[in-house]
C-alpha cells in the first residue's frame, strides 16, 4: 500500500518555505507600520504591537524550526531598533552605577520562548479552532511584556511594580486580542496564495497511522 502524501502541506516543502518567507516579510513590514501607530494615552501608553502580534500568530501556523527562525529574525530587528547603544565610557558622574541595560539578543530568547508556547496550541488551530489562538496571543503578549519588564528589574535592581505597569500590560494584551483575528485572517490568505495548508503534522501523522 502506497504511503499517502504528507497532508500537512498541499505543495510540500516549497509551499512551506514560501509561506514562511511571506510571513517573515509581513513581520518585517510590520516594523515600519508600527512607527505610524500612536500610543493610546488614556490606556497608560498601550498600543498595538504589530511585530509581536504577527509573530505570535505566525508561530501557530508554521513548523517549529520555522518558528525559531522567525523568532531570531524578529528578536534581532527588535533589539537593533529599540535597545539603546551607549559608548559605555560616559555613564554620568563618578558614582558607581551600571548601565543596567539588557543584553543585545535578549528579545530573540523572549520571542523563542513565546513562540514555543504558541506552538503548543497548534493542534487546536489545525482543527480550525480560532478562539484559543486569539486568546493565547493576548495572554502571551502580556507574558512577553512582563518578562521584558522583569529582565529590566533584574538588571537594574530596585523592583517597582506600579499600577500603571499592570494597566499597560493588560491594555496592550487586550489590543493584541482585538487585532489578532485580522492577522490570522491575513495569514490564512497568505497560506492560500502560497498553497500552504496550515495543519499540525503530529495530528495528521496520528490520523494516518504512521
Amino acid at each position, binding site marked *: 500500500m502506497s504511503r499517502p502524501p504528507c497532508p500537512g502541506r498541499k505543495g510540500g516543502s516549497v509551499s512551506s518555505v514560501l509561506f514562511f518567507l511571506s510571513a517573515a516579510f509581513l513581520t518585517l513590514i510590520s516594523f515600519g507600520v508600527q512607527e505610524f501607530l500612536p500610543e493610546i494615552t488614556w490606556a497608560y501608553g498601550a498600543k498595538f504591537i504589530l511585530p509581536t502580534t504577527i509573530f505570535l500568530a505566525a508561530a501557530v501556523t508554521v513548523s517549529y*524550526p520555522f518558528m525559531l527562525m522567525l523568532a531570531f529574525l524578529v528578536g534581532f530587528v527588535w533589539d537593533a531598533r529599540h535597545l539603546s547603544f551607549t559608548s559605555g565610557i560616559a555613564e*554620568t558622574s563618578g558614582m558607581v552605577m551600571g548601565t543596567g541595560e539588557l543584553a543585545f539578543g535578549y528579545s*530573540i530568547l523572549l520571542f523563542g520562548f513565546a513562540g514555543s508556547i504558541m506552538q503548543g496550541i497548534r493542534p487546536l488551530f489545525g482543527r480550525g479552532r480560532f478562539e484559543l489562538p486569539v486568546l493565547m496571543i493576548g495572554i502571551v503578549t502580556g507574558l512577553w511584556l512582563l518578562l521584558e519588564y522583569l529582565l529590566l528589574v533584574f538588571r537594574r535592581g530596585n523592583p517597582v511594580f506600579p499600577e500603571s505597569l499592570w494597566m499597560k500590560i493588560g491594555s496592550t494584551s487586550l489590543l493584541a486580542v482585538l487585532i489578532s483575528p485580522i492577522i490570522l485572517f491575513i495569514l490564512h490568505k497568505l497560506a492560500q496564495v502560497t498553497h500552504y495548508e496550515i495543519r499540525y503534522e503530529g495530528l495528521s501523522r496520528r490520523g494516518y497511522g504512521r
Partner: protein
Amino acid sequence: MRKINLLALVAFIASLAWVFTLDRESRGQIQSRVLEWFTPIFKTQTALEGNPEIEADRQREAGVLAAENAELRRELAEARVYRERSDQLQVEVNKLNAMLGFVKQSREHLIPARVINRTASNWWSSVVIDKGGEDGVGTDLPVRNEIGIIGKTAQVSPNSAKVILLTDEQCRVAAQIEGTLEQGIVMGTRGEGDGKGELRMRFLSKDATIPPGLKVISSGAGGLFPAGVFLGTVQEFIEGDVYGEAVVEPAVDLSVVRDLFVIVQDFPSDDVPAPEDVAPSSGDAEPEDQSVLRAEPYIPPSTADGSLVQDVQAALPGAEGGISE
C-alpha cells in the same frame, strides 16, 4: 522531539550565543545600520503628521506674525551679542587656566536638530532626531533646548540619531539643588515610556531640608553634561533609611519637545594658542555650514596683542618668571 526540531533548537541556541557575544563595535554598527533603514520611515511619518506649530501659525494674522518676527529678530541680535561676549570670556579663561596649569575648558558648539520619531518602545523613553554622524553628532553627547537638558545621544546613523530622554532610567545626570550643598543623581522612573514621567534625584542626604520649588541644575560632575543647566523643580523630598530622594518635575515637557540642540565639545589642544592663531579673520567671512552654530572665538584687541595676558601675569602673586605661555 523530532530530529529536525532538535537540530533547529541547537542551531537557534548557537545563533543566540553568537548574538550575545557580539562585541560593542559590531553591535553599534548593526544598530546604526538599522536606524538608518528606519530613517526614511521616520521622516515620512513626520511629514504626514505635519508641524502643529506651523498649522497654528497659518491661522494667525499677518500683523501679529510680523510683530512676533520683529521681536524674535531683536532677541536673536541680543543673543548674538551675549554669545560673542561669552566666547571672549571663554578664551580669556582658557588662557588664564593654562597659565595656572589647569586643564583648559572646552568650547561648545550646538547642532540644531528636530525630532522625527518618538520611539514606540515598551519601557524606554527615547526620540530620534534628524541629524546624525554626517552632521557631527556622535554617541553620548548631551542634548538640550533653550530651557534645559533633554537627554543624551545613543546610536548614531549617518542621517539620524537616537536620543535617550532624561525621563528614561538609563539617562543619569549629576545634579545639585540650587542654593544648597546637596548633590545627587537625577534619573527617570522605570516603565514610563512616553516621556511624561517624573524625575527622581537620588543620593541626597537623608536629613536634608529641601522645600518644594527649589531648582535642580546639572553639576557638571562626570563630564558628560555641562554644568548649570536647568533640569527641573523639586516637588517633594522623601527621607530614606540611607539617603534622601527628591521628586523632580522635568523642566522640559519631553512628550512634546520638537526642536533641540546637540552639544558638541571642541576640545582644544594642550598648547595655549598664540594670539595670532586665534585672532578673528576678516569680518566678511561666512560660516561654512549654516546648520551648525559654531561658537567662533572672538579675541578683543587687548587679548590679541597679548597685553591682557601680560597684565594678568603681572598681577599673579609670585609670577615673575614662573609662568610662560
